[in-house]
């Protein structure tokens, strides 16, 4: 019973990090139907920036967020500028183009920071935090779980309540009609990319604060984010939270009760099942994936 409770609790904390990772990808995917395959690498770069700040300037990871938000958002805008230049079939070309960006970022990180495994040395963030007498976690995990939930709610409210948020949803549902209503689709798309970059910066800092990083995990982050987005269906912040929770809890249960080596298999199998059985996702309204 204690094992089950711990598995559910850890799953919840992991879910927050997955949701944070998936939120940015889902935003861009929802707005532009572009899967930014470099999203995981943007997150990873933010993690390395936090690492750089901590190692050379002694800035705690939390305080490096404001700086990395601007840096990663700018980089994300750069990727948007490239995607925007694609002529012809944007759906597939953008996949290859952002794949190229991912390769560039991974190898750039490898070039600068080499292949070593890094993790934070911040004692405050890694201090244990025990609830009751059996729920173990790190302070950083709980902190970023809260921050992730806060950001998800903020993005949700922003999409519902503000003019620019509504403009994003308008472009997502019908680009031409949105243009006729006086919305500049290009600007809206740029905003969604920049916001995705800012979210990636927070996700990356959370990653560095709670786990160890190597230059090779960006790819896995992108896939994990895409799995959550597909599970959630397009255009649903709540769906992303639930999708992230489902996958994270399934993973921690697998680790606790089956075998740790099967953990990476869980997300992939969930992904394939959802794609083949219910391509619109659990919460998406329309059938998106099939022809």
């Amino acid at each position, binding site marked *: 019973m204690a094992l089950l409770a711990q598995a559910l609790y850890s799953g919840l904390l992991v879910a927050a990090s997955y949701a944070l990772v998936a939120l940015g990808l889902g935003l861009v995917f929802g707005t532009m139907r572009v*899967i930014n395959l470099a999203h995981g690498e943007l997150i990873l770069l933010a993690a390395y920036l936090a690492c750089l700040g901590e190692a050379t300037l002694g800035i705690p990871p939390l305080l490096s967020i404001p700086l990395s938000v601007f840096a990663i958002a700018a980089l994300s805008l750069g990727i948007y500028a*490239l995607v925007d*230049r*694609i*002529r*012809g079939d944007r*759906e*597939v*070309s953008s*996949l*290859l*183009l952002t*794949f*190229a*960006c*991912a*390769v*560039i970022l*991974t*190898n*750039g*990180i*490898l*070039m600068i920071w*080499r*292949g070593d495994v890094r993790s934070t040395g911040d004692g405050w963030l890694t201090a244990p935090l025990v609830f009751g007498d059996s729920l173990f976690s790190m302070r950083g995990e709980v902190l970023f779980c809260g921050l992730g939930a806060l950001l998800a709610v903020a993005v949700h409210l922003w999409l519902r309540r503000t003019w620019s948020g509504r403009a994003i949803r308008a472009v997502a549902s019908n680009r031409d009609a949105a243009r006729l209503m006086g919305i500049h689709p290009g600007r809206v798309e740029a905003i969604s990319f920049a916001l995705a970059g800012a979210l990636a910066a927070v996700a990356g800092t959370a990653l560095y604060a709670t786990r160890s990083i190597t*230059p090779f995990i960006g*790819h896995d982050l992108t*896939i994990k984010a*895409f*799995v959550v987005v*597909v599970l959630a269906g397009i255009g649903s912040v709540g769906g992303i939270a639930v999708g992230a929770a489902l996958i994270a809890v399934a993973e921690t249960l697998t680790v606790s009760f089956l*075998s740790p*080596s*099967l953990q*990476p*298999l869980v997300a*992939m*199998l969930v*992904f*394939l099942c959802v*794609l*083949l059985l219910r*391509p619109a996702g659990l919460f998406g309204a329309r059938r*998106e*994936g*099939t*022809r």
Partner: protein
Amino acid sequence: MTRARIAAYAATGAVAYALVPALAAGNDFVLGLLVAALTIAGVSVAWAMLANLGGLVSFGHAAFFGLGGYASALLSMKAGCPVPAALVLGGVAAAAGGAVALPALRLRGPYFALALLAYSQVLRIAVSDLRFTGGAAGLLSIPRLPAWGRLDLASRLGTYLLAATLVLLATAAYDAVHRSTYGLALRAMHDSELATRAVGVASTRLKAAMLLASAFVTGVMGALNAHVIGFLEPPYAFSGDWTLLPIVGAILGGYRTLWGPALGALVMFLADQLLFKALLPYGHQLVLGVLLGAVILVAPEGVASLVPRGPRRRGRHAVA
């Protein structure tokens, strides 16, 4: 056959079977590098065949490459299957793996690409967990290629000749499919799948056939690689490089052309190994990323399309 086509085959054959062996004989380093480049080139042709004729961009060819390698290695090690037969059966196993992936044909562009990517990851993890595949430790001392008469295929030169032959065969098969009525139907689907279906073409069946054929060729190249390297482990056999490098090669060379994918892969791989790796010991694939991105933005039809060819260029679609 038109005269230009015969000339292209003759020139390629002369370079592959006479010029390169004459220049590189005895230089095991260069021949080894060429074998690795040809392995990528073979996968590149298979990938381009699926992308051009099938209209399906795959991000999971590592799955077929790994399946082919593992099947061939296991068959020759545990079932005593002779290596040449194991090579073919490796391709068959990869095609069977492609058959399992057939439901993904229901998915549109990016979804298909990423479903195959997930598929290759599932296979990698599954193979790491299975007992009879050697698990995470992998397979050691996989049988080498045999000798045929006086030609020892396990020698560098012999392996090179076999690899070159396989790539040429893959290209010729691609050409044959492309010029057949099936190829015509597939190309018509590229313009409008709906219209093609309306005139009675079983488009999904044709695409399925392309997926299986592409998986088969990729599996054979994976099998060849396994017997050349003599060792397999899941992260290597299903490495993302087996997806990345063929895609970059095919896109650089022009994936809608016949010779582009193989040529692009050869040039890209040799430049990466000889030049970029020497200049940038860490992260040399950065250059490949830049090249891939640049080609997609500037010349989506491949680098060769940048060379002006006069008025004839207009209207030349795909493989002329």
